């Protein structure tokens, strides 16, 4: 946004549901989509007398994510109660972490293969664990305005990741969220499924305006519950302009008397943000340490053990692919963004095919095209990496030219055949050199005008002969036809 008279300043609070079988403080299933209130027990519905017991797997997933986000892991962390009343919060408080979170002070590197922004580290202020609330379903049919509560989600483990206000554009916002999502899915920490609410984003946004008197910051606005990347980009773009307009109109800046942090929602249909909390209202959550839970101690050895157990992370993987296979950052980004299975697939194709760049072209163009067209996941893709690798190998060896190779590829996908089988079925084979020589002689003899053109120095005229050669034998290699025909004409 170079033409705008202001800088966009964004900090993101991202909630991700952790991939545990059971809830954070009880043994109920966290599976999505069950009939309402069927995945509950006295603990997660907060019945009198019930007590929480920490899910160690959830804590470990939190640690894995925090360590991958380069966070410091304090030795001591504890659980706090965040208190507020809402019907889908059955205990009247949410168990969360307040002043001593399980991790803090990390960063996530973002970059753009298209070069729209320079590679940068976005600070992570903290990442902490907390339990999810239930769902309120407001049924306003027949004017009854009944509300229904589903407590299946209550107690599902969440990791809240709070970024520093280091993000400067909608492109950086998308890059941050994409990279975060990729990292967490690679780590198996979360499935980050936005439709199912496994990844939810709140954005804190304001703008810095360059004026003659210096830089001015507008009051911070929190935009809640942005449930798709597209919504987030649109909401941020809208909000930046809105804040600029409000500033032009009122001149109000951050810290002025009567200014406060506003909470706004995003209405995607109307394409506007709208105020959700009108009045200044200091919500006092009366945090205090939960006396039902013990503090958690994480020793340096535990952190080392988790760090040692981490699989290769996306950023490292991209660098390795670029170095080992000589592919571009753009290609490595496309491949890694598809997830670990495609990376493994690509590496196998590159190994067998013997050319990393060509393998990348086949995978990022042909394979992804078919996956997109068919809406398949890689597991459904009929070509094994070995089969595609064989085809690439033939291309690399010049055994088959590229347009014919694509026909073979399509045939292999359609009939689940090997490259050799498809080539046989399509009648593709290398043409014997004496046969090719004969074809060339024939067409040279039949095209005196082209011969004359070539003789007069218009070498490109020979191109017309290639098409004729292919009509006589579709396997004729265009380069070979061109070369042989020129040799014949030369000798004439």
């Amino acid at each position, binding site marked *: 946004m170079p033409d705008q008279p202001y800088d966009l300043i964004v900090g993101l609070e991202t909630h991700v549901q952790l991939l545990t079988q059971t809830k954070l403080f009880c043994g109920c299933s966290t599976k999505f989509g069950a009939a309402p209130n069927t995945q509950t027990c*006295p603990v997660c*519905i*907060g*019945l*009198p*007398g*019930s*007590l*929480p*017991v*920490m899910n160690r797997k959830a804590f470990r997933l939190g640690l894995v994510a925090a360590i991958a986000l380069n966070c410091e892991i304090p030795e001591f962390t504890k659980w706090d*109660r965040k*208190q507020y*009343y809402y*019907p889908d919060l*059955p*205990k*009247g*408080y949410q168990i969360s972490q307040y002043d001593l979170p399980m991790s803090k002070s990390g960063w996530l590197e973002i970059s753009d293969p298209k070069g729209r922004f320079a590679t940068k580290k976005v600070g992570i202020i903290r990442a902490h664990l907390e339990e999810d609330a239930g769902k309120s379903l407001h049924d306003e049919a027949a004017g009854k305005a009944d509300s229904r*509560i589903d407590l299946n989600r209550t107690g599902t483990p969440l990791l809240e990741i709070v970024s520093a206000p280091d993000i400067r554009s909608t492109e950086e916002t998308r890059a941050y969220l994409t990279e975060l999502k990729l990292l967490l899915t690679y780590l198996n920490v979360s499935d980050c499924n936005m439709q199912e609410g496994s990844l939810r984003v709140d954005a804190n946004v304001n703008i810095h305006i360059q004026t003659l008197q210096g830089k001015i910051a507008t009051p911070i606005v929190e935009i809640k519950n942005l449930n798709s990347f597209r919504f987030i980009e649109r909401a941020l773009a809208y909000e930046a302009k809105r804040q600029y307009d409000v500033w032009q109109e009122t001149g109000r800046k951050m810290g002025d008397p009567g200014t406060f942090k506003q909470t706004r929602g995003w209405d995607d249909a109307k394409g506007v943000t709208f105020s959700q909390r009108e009045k200044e209202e*200091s919500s*006092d959550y*009366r*945090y*205090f340490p939960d*006396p*039902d*839970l*013990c503090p958690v101690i994480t020793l340096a050895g535990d952190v080392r053990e988790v760090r040692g157990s981490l699989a290769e992370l996306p950023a490292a993987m991209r660098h390795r692919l670029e170095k080992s296979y000589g592919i571009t950052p753009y290609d490595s980004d496309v491949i890694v963004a598809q997830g670990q299975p495609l990376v493994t697939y690509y590496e196998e194709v590159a190994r067998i095919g013997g050319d990393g760049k060509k393998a990348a072209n086949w995978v990022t163009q042909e394979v992804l095209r078919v996956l997109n067209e068919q809406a398949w996941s890689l597991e459904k893709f009929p070509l094994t990496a070995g089969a595609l690798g064989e085809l690439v190998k033939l291309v690399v060896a010049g055994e088959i030219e590229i347009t014919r190779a694509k026909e073979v590829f399509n045939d292999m996908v359609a009939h689940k055949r090997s490259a050799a089988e498809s080539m046989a079925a399509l009648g593709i084979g290398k043409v014997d050199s004496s046969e090719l020589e004969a074809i060339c002689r024939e067409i040279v003899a039949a095209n005196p005008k082209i011969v004359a053109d070539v003789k007069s120095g218009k070498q490109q005229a020979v191109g017309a002969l290639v098409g004729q050669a292919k009509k006589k034998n579709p396997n004729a290699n265009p380069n070979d036809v061109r070369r042989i025909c020129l040799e014949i004409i030369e000798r004439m």
Partner: protein
Amino acid sequence: MSLTAHSAADLLRDLAARKVSSVELVNAYAERIRRLDGQIKAFLHVDFDAALARAKEIDGRRAAGKPVGKLGGLPVAIKDVLCTQGIKTTCASKILQNFVPPYDATVVRKLKEADAVILGKTNMDEFAMGGSTENSAYFKTTNPWDTSRVPGGSSGGAAACLAAGMAPLSIGTDTGGSIRQPAAFCGVTGIKPTYGRVSRYGLVAFASSLDQIGPLGRSAEDCALLLEAIAGHDPRDSTSADLPVPEYAKSVSQPLAGLKLGLVREYFGKGLDSEIEAAVREAVKVYQSLGATVKELSMPHSKYGIATYYIIAPSEASSNLARYDGVHYGYRTDEKAMLDELAAEQKKYEAENNTKKLADLDTPLIRLYRKTRAEGFGPEVKRRIMLGTYTLSAGYYDAYYLKALKVRRLIRQDYDRAFEEVDFLVGPTTPNPAFKLGEKTDDPLAMYLEDLYTVTLNLAGLGGISLPCGFTKSGLPIGLQLQCRPFDEERLLRAAAMYQRATDWHTKRPTIGGKE
């Protein structure tokens, strides 16, 4: 002598020897409850049919030579603050008037596994907040020694049913003295175990960091039986201690040699009733005659106990009781009346054109919360919710809650230092004997001061016992308190039993109901 006059330990021996059946026992206690509980009002709920069915099943098993649990058919009364599956659990509050838990507290489960027979649920101060059982939303329990007096609280029903011979064993809870003080007032024995000794799962929370379940009985030996059945680690309670449970019942009769008792100077200051002081000093002499040495020492921070307790306990309570909002279970205000009230207010403000009042008008949800809680909680509970909400609020947290946590640590340090020198601290359980019903209901502060000698033990998370050590001239029981090191209940019970073998205070019975 009737069945109900015996100690639980004796009854258990007779049950095992098949001299008596569980059914006979249940019938005997049921008969006394029918006869006396109209006057004592110790029980909120009894189910004799269920108790008899259970007793019959246990008797049958014993007759068939099959294994029978440690409590072998003994009836037990349970304070109505422990969840009992399928049996109403009200906490003596209107807000839980119809609450039937779908699960058993771990202690209840363990009692069932030990083949105890649940007689009923006993009365208490609402949500265990109080020291007289006058804060029950249902009725006041009286003291069997003088029915014009309180039985103490909050486990008033638990202590009174024992004193009146309506149960041989009783489960109570102690957050600031709620087992020990009613035990003292009713002339029975009650133990508050070390925090973490007994699972709190299924105990409806008042102040989670202070609450602990414990047994009441007619002797240390009876308490040992019951504690052994309910103690132990519970994976459902993160704060329960993963330590083995000693065989309390077996060891309780072994005396302790070379006992070192600490006499805390601060426990004998202003406000202590002179008859109680005399009885306690006499009890100390009994111990000396049994070979104990006594050392006077100081607990300099004990004077902050009440102030600290009345910040920490209400803070936790304000949070623990937030769930009673009328949405998911329990009492809910009349919705139609609530909506009509709101509509009338809106109409009124509209007519007055009062935009401020209109803007501030509750949403129906907020009004539902307000009215449900206003109608469902009694005054003492509301007082503590307000106190705790205040002490946890932004701007006050550091000055109250955080400061109280620091004092709490200092109080524990006093204990740790004392226990470097002595085995047990000995002193009065309460500064005064049982007071008259209604005497302190208008003066909450005076009521709070009755907890003077008991609250520090909860703040420190340690164990203690109250046992009868005499009577006032007017015939009211006096309680002696022994306090012990963490998880030292085994020796605490032995020390108490030593005293009870040398004295007969614990065998005295009130005259109510005639000779048992």
